[in-house]
Protein backbone atom coordinates (compact mmCIF):
# COMPACT_ATOMS: atom_id res chain seq x y z
CA UNK A 1 0.00 0.00 0.00
CA UNK A 2 2.37 2.65 -1.22
CA UNK A 3 0.02 5.61 -1.28
CA UNK A 4 -2.64 5.96 1.37
CA UNK A 5 -5.92 7.54 0.30
CA UNK A 6 -4.33 8.32 -3.01
CA UNK A 7 -2.20 11.05 -1.50
CA UNK A 8 1.21 11.04 0.13
CA UNK A 9 2.04 13.29 3.01
CA UNK A 10 5.41 14.68 3.93
CA UNK A 11 6.82 12.74 6.84
CA UNK A 12 10.42 13.22 7.93
CA UNK A 13 12.22 10.45 9.78
CA UNK A 14 15.41 11.00 11.75
CA UNK A 15 16.99 7.59 12.18
CA UNK A 16 19.97 6.56 14.21
CA UNK A 17 22.75 5.11 12.10
CA UNK A 18 23.38 2.14 14.40
CA UNK A 19 19.90 0.75 15.02
CA UNK A 20 16.84 2.14 13.31
CA UNK A 21 18.50 2.91 9.99
CA UNK A 22 19.67 -0.69 10.00
CA UNK A 23 16.15 -1.76 11.00
CA UNK A 24 14.66 0.09 8.04
CA UNK A 25 17.27 -1.56 5.83
CA UNK A 26 16.40 -4.99 7.22
CA UNK A 27 12.75 -4.31 6.45
CA UNK A 28 13.68 -3.35 2.92
CA UNK A 29 15.90 -6.39 2.34
CA UNK A 30 13.08 -8.62 3.63
CA UNK A 31 10.76 -6.81 1.20
CA UNK A 32 8.23 -5.88 3.83
CA UNK A 33 5.51 -3.58 2.48
CA UNK A 34 5.78 -0.04 3.80
CA UNK A 35 4.06 3.28 3.16
CA UNK A 36 6.32 5.56 1.15
CA UNK A 37 5.55 8.90 2.78
CA UNK A 38 8.59 8.81 5.03
CA UNK A 39 11.80 10.57 3.98
CA UNK A 40 14.70 9.32 6.03
CA UNK A 41 17.54 11.44 7.37
CA UNK A 42 20.33 9.37 8.88
CA UNK A 43 21.92 10.74 12.04
CA UNK A 44 24.80 9.33 14.10
CA UNK A 45 22.70 8.87 17.25
CA UNK A 46 19.24 9.81 18.54
CA UNK A 47 21.20 11.90 21.06
CA UNK A 48 22.27 14.04 18.12
CA UNK A 49 18.68 15.13 17.48
CA UNK A 50 18.28 18.76 18.40
CA UNK A 51 14.53 19.28 18.97
CA UNK A 52 14.96 22.27 16.67
CA UNK A 53 15.55 19.85 13.75
CA UNK A 54 11.99 18.71 14.30
CA UNK A 55 10.67 22.25 14.69
CA UNK A 56 12.41 23.25 11.47
CA UNK A 57 10.90 20.30 9.63
CA UNK A 58 7.41 21.39 10.70
CA UNK A 59 8.10 25.01 9.77
CA UNK A 60 9.20 23.91 6.31
CA UNK A 61 6.08 21.93 5.67
CA UNK A 62 6.42 18.46 7.18
CA UNK A 63 3.09 16.90 8.14
CA UNK A 64 4.73 14.53 10.60
CA UNK A 65 8.14 13.77 12.10
CA UNK A 66 9.38 10.44 13.42
CA UNK A 67 12.57 9.97 15.42
CA UNK A 68 13.86 6.46 15.94
CA UNK A 69 16.96 5.28 17.77
CA UNK A 70 18.41 2.26 19.56
CA UNK A 71 16.48 0.75 22.43
CA UNK A 72 17.47 2.12 25.83
CA UNK A 73 20.49 0.10 27.10
CA UNK A 74 21.51 -0.60 23.48
CA UNK A 75 22.90 2.80 22.49
CA UNK A 76 26.15 2.60 20.52
CA UNK A 77 27.36 5.51 22.64
CA UNK A 78 25.88 4.04 25.86
CA UNK A 79 23.68 6.95 26.87
CA UNK A 80 22.78 9.11 23.89
CA UNK A 81 19.23 7.83 23.72
CA UNK A 82 18.60 8.42 27.44
CA UNK A 83 19.24 12.14 27.00
CA UNK A 84 17.25 12.04 23.78
CA UNK A 85 14.27 10.47 25.53
CA UNK A 86 13.94 13.39 27.96
CA UNK A 87 14.44 16.04 25.29
CA UNK A 88 12.06 14.45 22.83
CA UNK A 89 9.35 13.90 25.43
CA UNK A 90 9.62 17.55 26.54
CA UNK A 91 9.43 18.66 22.91
CA UNK A 92 6.45 16.44 22.17
CA UNK A 93 4.49 17.97 25.02
CA UNK A 94 5.67 21.49 24.11
CA UNK A 95 4.37 21.55 20.53
CA UNK A 96 0.74 21.56 21.63
CA UNK A 97 1.10 25.22 22.64
CA UNK A 98 2.29 26.03 19.12
CA UNK A 99 -0.90 24.49 17.75
CA UNK A 100 0.76 21.33 16.44
CA UNK A 101 -1.05 18.11 17.32
CA UNK A 102 1.24 15.91 19.44
CA UNK A 103 0.37 12.92 17.23
CA UNK A 104 2.31 14.54 14.42
CA UNK A 105 5.51 13.75 16.25
CA UNK A 106 6.60 10.43 17.74
CA UNK A 107 9.87 8.96 18.87
CA UNK A 108 10.56 5.28 19.16
CA UNK A 109 13.25 2.62 19.43
CA UNK A 110 13.87 0.04 16.72
CA UNK A 111 16.99 -2.14 16.54
CA UNK A 112 18.84 -3.17 13.38
CA UNK A 113 17.39 -6.68 13.47
CA UNK A 114 13.78 -5.58 13.93
CA UNK A 115 12.68 -5.24 10.32
CA UNK A 116 9.22 -6.41 11.18
CA UNK A 117 8.94 -3.92 14.01
CA UNK A 118 10.11 -1.12 11.72
CA UNK A 119 7.39 -2.00 9.24
CA UNK A 120 4.82 -1.82 12.02
CA UNK A 121 6.07 1.50 13.42
CA UNK A 122 6.25 3.24 10.09
CA UNK A 123 2.83 1.97 9.03
CA UNK A 124 1.12 2.96 12.26
CA UNK A 125 2.77 6.36 12.34
CA UNK A 126 1.88 7.08 8.73
CA UNK A 127 -1.74 6.10 9.41
CA UNK A 128 -1.74 8.36 12.45
CA UNK A 129 -0.53 11.35 10.43
CA UNK A 130 -2.98 10.60 7.63
CA UNK A 131 -5.79 10.59 10.17
CA UNK A 132 -4.88 14.21 10.96
CA UNK A 133 -4.38 15.12 7.32
CA UNK A 134 -1.89 17.63 5.93
CA UNK A 135 -0.72 20.40 8.24
CA UNK A 136 -1.62 23.95 7.22
CA UNK A 137 1.62 25.57 6.02
CA UNK A 138 3.28 28.25 8.09
CA UNK A 139 3.41 31.29 5.80
CA UNK A 140 6.74 32.54 4.58
CA UNK A 141 5.37 35.92 3.52
CA UNK A 142 4.27 38.74 5.80
CA UNK A 143 0.55 38.22 6.30
CA UNK A 144 -0.14 41.88 6.93
CA UNK A 145 1.35 42.78 3.54
CA UNK A 146 -0.64 40.05 1.89
CA UNK A 147 -3.79 41.33 3.57
CA UNK A 148 -3.08 44.90 2.42
CA UNK A 149 -2.55 44.03 -1.18
CA UNK A 150 -5.47 41.66 -1.31
CA UNK A 151 -7.68 44.01 0.66
CA UNK A 152 -8.57 41.26 3.13
CA UNK A 153 -8.22 41.22 6.88
CA UNK A 154 -5.48 39.34 8.68
CA UNK A 155 -7.66 36.39 9.72
CA UNK A 156 -8.74 35.79 6.16
CA UNK A 157 -5.14 36.07 5.00
CA UNK A 158 -4.09 33.38 7.46
CA UNK A 159 -6.82 31.03 6.38
CA UNK A 160 -6.25 31.68 2.71
CA UNK A 161 -2.52 31.24 2.92
CA UNK A 162 -3.20 28.01 4.77
Amino acid at each position, binding site marked *: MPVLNGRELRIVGFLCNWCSYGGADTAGVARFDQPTDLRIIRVPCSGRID*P*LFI*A*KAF*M*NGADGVLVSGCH*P*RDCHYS*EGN*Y*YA*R*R*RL*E*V*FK*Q*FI*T*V*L*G*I*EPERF*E*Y*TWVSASEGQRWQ*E*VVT*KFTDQVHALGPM*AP*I*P*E*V*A*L*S*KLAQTEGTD*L*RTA*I*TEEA
Partner: protein
Amino acid sequence: MMLDQLKETIKTALPELDFVMGWTTGYDPLHATPLYMYEPDDVDQLIWGPLNVHNLAVHLPALRHKKVGIVVKGCDSRSVVELLQENLIDRENVVIFGAPCNGVVDMTKIRKAVPDAHFARSVETADNSLTITTDKDTHTLSLAEVMADKCTRCRFPNAVEADHFVGEKRIPAVETDPYADLESFESQGFAERRDFWMAEMDRCIRCYACRNACPLCVCRDHCVAQSREPHWVSQRDGVRDKFMFQVIHAIHMAGRCTECGECERACPMDIPVLLLKRKLGNVIHDLFDYDAGLDAEARPPLLAFKLEEDSIKEKDW
Protein backbone atom coordinates in the same frame (compact mmCIF):
# COMPACT_ATOMS: atom_id res chain seq x y z
CA MET B 1 12.00 52.71 56.48
CA MET B 2 13.04 49.81 54.32
CA LEU B 3 14.56 51.80 51.45
CA ASP B 4 16.79 53.75 53.87
CA GLN B 5 17.90 50.52 55.44
CA LEU B 6 18.67 49.09 52.00
CA LYS B 7 20.72 52.18 51.11
CA GLU B 8 22.68 51.95 54.38
CA THR B 9 23.42 48.28 53.74
CA ILE B 10 24.66 49.03 50.24
CA LYS B 11 26.81 51.95 51.43
CA THR B 12 28.44 49.71 54.03
CA ALA B 13 29.24 47.04 51.44
CA LEU B 14 30.30 49.46 48.68
CA PRO B 15 34.01 49.83 49.58
CA GLU B 16 34.55 46.12 48.89
CA LEU B 17 32.80 46.24 45.53
CA ASP B 18 33.42 47.68 42.07
CA PHE B 19 29.82 48.88 41.98
CA VAL B 20 26.26 47.91 42.85
CA MET B 21 23.35 47.72 40.39
CA GLY B 22 19.87 48.96 41.30
CA TRP B 23 17.19 51.22 39.85
CA THR B 24 16.53 54.93 39.72
CA THR B 25 13.98 57.21 38.07
CA GLY B 26 14.46 57.33 34.31
CA TYR B 27 13.54 59.73 31.52
CA ASP B 28 10.13 60.31 33.06
CA PRO B 29 8.78 59.62 36.55
CA LEU B 30 6.91 56.53 35.38
CA HIS B 31 9.91 54.72 33.93
CA ALA B 32 12.70 53.48 36.14
CA THR B 33 16.13 52.87 34.67
CA PRO B 34 19.12 50.84 35.88
CA LEU B 35 21.40 52.65 38.33
CA TYR B 36 25.10 51.93 38.78
CA MET B 37 26.28 52.90 42.23
CA TYR B 38 29.99 53.56 42.51
CA GLU B 39 29.97 56.18 45.31
CA PRO B 40 27.81 56.62 48.41
CA ASP B 41 26.19 59.64 46.70
CA ASP B 42 24.96 57.40 43.89
CA VAL B 43 23.22 55.20 46.43
CA ASP B 44 20.96 58.09 47.42
CA GLN B 45 19.31 57.93 44.00
CA LEU B 46 18.19 54.33 44.52
CA ILE B 47 14.47 53.65 44.35
CA TRP B 48 12.53 50.53 45.36
CA GLY B 49 8.95 49.73 44.47
CA PRO B 50 6.54 48.80 41.69
CA LEU B 51 8.43 50.69 38.97
CA ASN B 52 11.58 48.54 39.32
CA VAL B 53 10.58 46.34 36.45
CA HIS B 54 13.97 45.39 34.96
CA ASN B 55 15.71 42.19 35.86
CA LEU B 56 19.28 43.41 36.33
CA ALA B 57 20.68 39.88 36.40
CA VAL B 58 20.94 40.15 32.60
CA HIS B 59 24.14 42.17 33.07
CA LEU B 60 25.93 39.73 35.38
CA PRO B 61 27.56 37.31 32.92
CA ALA B 62 29.35 40.17 31.12
CA LEU B 63 30.60 41.46 34.49
CA ARG B 64 31.92 38.10 35.55
CA HIS B 65 35.41 39.32 36.35
CA LYS B 66 34.31 42.26 38.43
CA LYS B 67 33.09 42.18 41.99
CA VAL B 68 29.61 43.57 41.76
CA GLY B 69 26.57 43.98 43.94
CA ILE B 70 23.05 43.55 42.62
CA VAL B 71 19.72 44.53 44.10
CA VAL B 72 17.09 41.90 43.38
CA LYS B 73 13.41 41.25 43.56
CA GLY B 74 12.40 37.67 44.34
CA CYS B 75 12.05 36.72 40.67
CA ASP B 76 15.38 38.35 39.76
CA SER B 77 17.11 36.31 42.44
CA ARG B 78 16.07 33.12 40.66
CA SER B 79 17.89 34.32 37.53
CA VAL B 80 20.99 34.89 39.63
CA VAL B 81 20.70 31.38 41.07
CA GLU B 82 20.25 29.92 37.59
CA LEU B 83 23.36 31.77 36.34
CA LEU B 84 25.30 30.39 39.33
CA GLN B 85 24.06 26.88 38.64
CA GLU B 86 25.21 27.11 35.03
CA ASN B 87 28.59 28.42 36.08
CA LEU B 88 28.10 31.62 34.09
CA ILE B 89 28.95 33.77 37.11
CA ASP B 90 30.97 33.17 40.28
CA ARG B 91 29.37 33.23 43.70
CA GLU B 92 32.35 34.96 45.33
CA ASN B 93 32.16 37.83 42.85
CA VAL B 94 28.49 38.68 43.36
CA VAL B 95 26.92 40.29 46.39
CA ILE B 96 23.13 39.99 46.42
CA PHE B 97 20.93 42.59 48.13
CA GLY B 98 17.32 41.52 48.55
CA ALA B 99 14.16 43.06 49.93
CA PRO B 100 10.53 41.92 50.05
CA CYS B 101 8.74 42.70 46.79
CA ASN B 102 5.11 43.77 46.48
CA GLY B 103 4.94 43.40 42.74
CA VAL B 104 5.84 45.53 39.75
CA VAL B 105 3.71 47.28 37.16
CA ASP B 106 3.01 46.23 33.60
CA MET B 107 3.47 49.35 31.46
CA THR B 108 1.05 48.04 28.85
CA LYS B 109 -1.69 47.86 31.47
CA ILE B 110 -0.83 51.38 32.64
CA ARG B 111 -1.01 52.72 29.09
CA LYS B 112 -4.43 51.15 28.73
CA ALA B 113 -5.69 52.62 32.00
CA VAL B 114 -4.07 56.03 31.47
CA PRO B 115 -3.91 56.91 27.76
CA ASP B 116 -1.86 60.05 28.40
CA ALA B 117 0.66 58.18 30.59
CA HIS B 118 3.37 59.27 28.14
CA PHE B 119 3.06 62.76 29.60
CA ALA B 120 3.46 61.77 33.25
CA ARG B 121 4.66 64.69 35.35
CA SER B 122 4.85 62.87 38.66
CA VAL B 123 4.18 59.44 40.07
CA GLU B 124 3.60 58.57 43.69
CA THR B 125 3.69 55.00 44.79
CA ALA B 126 2.10 53.64 47.94
CA ASP B 127 1.92 50.05 49.15
CA ASN B 128 -1.07 49.09 47.06
CA SER B 129 -1.62 51.94 44.67
CA LEU B 130 0.01 54.42 42.39
CA THR B 131 -0.97 57.96 41.54
CA ILE B 132 0.03 59.31 38.15
CA THR B 133 -0.26 63.02 37.42
CA THR B 134 -0.17 63.90 33.76
CA ASP B 135 -0.48 67.24 31.98
CA LYS B 136 -4.25 66.81 31.97
CA ASP B 137 -5.24 64.74 34.96
CA THR B 138 -4.45 62.83 38.11
CA HIS B 139 -5.15 59.10 38.08
CA THR B 140 -5.03 56.81 41.07
CA LEU B 141 -4.68 53.16 40.10
CA SER B 142 -4.70 50.21 42.44
CA LEU B 143 -1.51 48.21 42.06
CA ALA B 144 -3.56 45.04 41.63
CA GLU B 145 -5.12 46.33 38.43
CA VAL B 146 -1.88 47.31 36.70
CA MET B 147 0.42 44.68 38.17
CA ALA B 148 2.43 42.36 35.92
CA ASP B 149 0.71 38.98 35.57
CA LYS B 150 3.74 37.21 37.00
CA CYS B 151 3.24 39.05 40.30
CA THR B 152 -0.32 37.81 40.71
CA ARG B 153 1.05 34.27 40.82
CA CYS B 154 4.34 35.08 42.60
CA ARG B 155 5.75 32.27 44.71
CA PHE B 156 9.01 33.93 45.70
CA PRO B 157 8.57 37.62 46.59
CA ASN B 158 11.65 37.41 48.82
CA ALA B 159 15.05 36.68 47.28
CA VAL B 160 15.69 32.92 47.23
CA GLU B 161 19.37 33.69 47.81
CA ALA B 162 20.76 36.90 49.33
CA ASP B 163 23.84 38.07 51.18
CA HIS B 164 21.91 40.96 52.69
CA PHE B 165 18.16 40.82 53.10
CA VAL B 166 16.47 43.97 54.34
CA GLY B 167 12.90 44.22 55.67
CA GLU B 168 10.16 41.80 56.66
CA LYS B 169 9.70 38.77 54.44
CA ARG B 170 6.47 38.88 52.47
CA ILE B 171 4.07 35.96 52.27
CA PRO B 172 3.86 34.61 48.70
CA ALA B 173 0.68 35.06 46.68
CA VAL B 174 0.43 31.35 45.86
CA GLU B 175 2.28 28.17 46.69
CA THR B 176 2.26 26.52 43.30
CA ASP B 177 1.97 28.12 39.90
CA PRO B 178 -1.68 27.84 38.83
CA TYR B 179 -0.87 27.85 35.08
CA ALA B 180 -4.45 29.00 34.51
CA ASP B 181 -3.38 31.23 31.59
CA LEU B 182 -1.91 28.24 29.81
CA GLU B 183 -4.94 26.09 30.46
CA SER B 184 -7.30 28.65 29.04
CA PHE B 185 -5.10 29.09 25.96
CA GLU B 186 -5.00 25.35 25.42
CA SER B 187 -8.73 24.97 25.81
CA GLN B 188 -8.84 26.15 22.17
CA GLY B 189 -8.43 23.82 19.22
CA PHE B 190 -5.05 23.34 17.54
CA ALA B 191 -6.01 25.41 14.49
CA GLU B 192 -7.05 28.35 16.69
CA ARG B 193 -3.78 28.19 18.60
CA ARG B 194 -1.82 28.24 15.36
CA ASP B 195 -3.84 31.11 13.95
CA PHE B 196 -3.20 33.00 17.16
CA TRP B 197 0.57 32.65 16.81
CA MET B 198 0.45 33.43 13.10
CA ALA B 199 -1.25 36.75 13.83
CA GLU B 200 1.04 37.54 16.80
CA MET B 201 4.21 36.62 14.92
CA ASP B 202 3.09 38.71 11.99
CA ARG B 203 3.41 41.74 14.28
CA CYS B 204 6.92 40.83 15.42
CA ILE B 205 9.47 43.33 14.14
CA ARG B 206 12.44 41.06 14.84
CA CYS B 207 14.09 43.58 17.13
CA TYR B 208 15.25 40.68 19.34
CA ALA B 209 14.54 42.70 22.48
CA CYS B 210 13.00 39.53 23.91
CA ARG B 211 16.34 37.84 23.54
CA ASN B 212 18.50 40.70 24.72
CA ALA B 213 16.48 41.26 27.90
CA CYS B 214 16.61 37.59 28.82
CA PRO B 215 19.17 36.98 31.58
CA LEU B 216 19.65 33.41 30.40
CA CYS B 217 20.13 34.12 26.68
CA VAL B 218 23.87 34.06 27.03
CA CYS B 219 25.11 33.14 23.56
CA ARG B 220 24.93 36.84 22.59
CA ASP B 221 26.96 37.26 19.41
CA HIS B 222 26.81 33.56 18.71
CA CYS B 223 23.02 33.27 18.65
CA VAL B 224 21.89 30.59 16.20
CA ALA B 225 19.37 33.08 14.85
CA GLN B 226 22.28 35.02 13.37
CA SER B 227 24.42 32.12 12.29
CA ARG B 228 24.96 31.72 8.54
CA GLU B 229 26.42 28.24 8.79
CA PRO B 230 24.10 26.54 9.54
CA HIS B 231 21.45 29.01 8.48
CA TRP B 232 18.61 28.39 10.96
CA VAL B 233 16.49 31.43 10.13
CA SER B 234 16.57 33.72 7.13
CA GLN B 235 16.13 37.49 6.96
CA ARG B 236 12.61 37.23 5.50
CA ASP B 237 9.79 39.05 7.24
CA GLY B 238 7.26 36.22 7.11
CA VAL B 239 5.91 34.55 10.20
CA ARG B 240 7.83 31.36 9.55
CA ASP B 241 11.23 32.72 10.52
CA LYS B 242 9.86 34.76 13.38
CA PHE B 243 7.95 31.80 14.76
CA MET B 244 11.03 29.65 14.38
CA PHE B 245 13.01 32.20 16.35
CA GLN B 246 10.53 32.05 19.24
CA VAL B 247 10.69 28.27 19.20
CA ILE B 248 14.49 28.51 19.32
CA HIS B 249 14.36 30.90 22.28
CA ALA B 250 11.87 28.71 24.13
CA ILE B 251 13.71 25.44 23.49
CA HIS B 252 17.04 26.96 24.52
CA MET B 253 15.36 27.89 27.80
CA ALA B 254 13.95 24.43 28.53
CA GLY B 255 14.64 23.65 32.17
CA ARG B 256 16.45 26.97 32.59
CA CYS B 257 13.81 29.68 32.22
CA THR B 258 12.67 31.03 35.57
CA GLU B 259 9.66 32.72 33.96
CA CYS B 260 10.91 36.14 35.00
CA GLY B 261 8.91 37.57 32.10
CA GLU B 262 11.61 39.92 30.82
CA CYS B 263 11.22 38.64 27.26
CA GLU B 264 7.60 39.64 27.22
CA ARG B 265 8.08 42.89 29.12
CA ALA B 266 10.77 44.05 26.70
CA CYS B 267 8.71 43.27 23.60
CA PRO B 268 7.63 46.56 22.00
CA MET B 269 4.85 44.77 20.13
CA ASP B 270 3.24 43.22 23.22
CA ILE B 271 3.61 39.71 21.90
CA PRO B 272 2.87 37.20 24.66
CA VAL B 273 6.06 35.18 24.20
CA LEU B 274 6.18 34.18 27.86
CA LEU B 275 3.31 31.78 27.22
CA LEU B 276 5.61 29.54 25.18
CA LYS B 277 8.13 29.42 28.00
CA ARG B 278 5.46 28.83 30.59
CA LYS B 279 4.34 25.81 28.62
CA LEU B 280 7.85 24.39 28.78
CA GLY B 281 8.11 25.27 32.46
CA ASN B 282 4.87 23.43 33.08
CA VAL B 283 5.99 20.35 31.13
CA ILE B 284 9.33 20.22 32.94
CA HIS B 285 7.65 20.70 36.29
CA ASP B 286 5.22 17.84 35.61
CA LEU B 287 7.82 15.46 34.19
CA PHE B 288 10.74 16.07 36.50
CA ASP B 289 9.27 17.85 39.51
CA TYR B 290 11.78 20.63 38.87
CA ASP B 291 11.69 24.44 38.86
CA ALA B 292 14.63 26.43 37.54
CA GLY B 293 16.53 28.94 39.62
CA LEU B 294 15.84 27.61 43.10
CA ASP B 295 18.93 25.58 43.88
CA ALA B 296 22.37 26.42 42.50
CA GLU B 297 23.56 22.88 43.31
CA ALA B 298 20.72 21.05 41.55
CA ARG B 299 21.25 18.95 38.44
CA PRO B 300 19.29 20.37 35.48
CA PRO B 301 16.77 17.75 34.30
CA LEU B 302 17.85 17.83 30.66
CA LEU B 303 21.45 17.14 31.64
CA ALA B 304 20.43 14.00 33.45
CA PHE B 305 18.43 10.80 32.88
CA LYS B 306 17.13 7.70 34.61
CA LEU B 307 17.42 4.24 33.08
CA GLU B 308 13.72 3.83 33.70
CA GLU B 309 11.91 7.18 33.66
CA ASP B 310 9.05 7.28 36.16
CA SER B 311 6.98 9.91 34.44
CA ILE B 312 7.67 9.41 30.73
CA LYS B 313 5.07 7.19 29.12
CA GLU B 314 6.36 6.14 25.73
CA LYS B 315 4.22 4.94 22.91
CA ASP B 316 3.93 1.16 23.09
CA TRP B 317 4.25 0.17 19.48
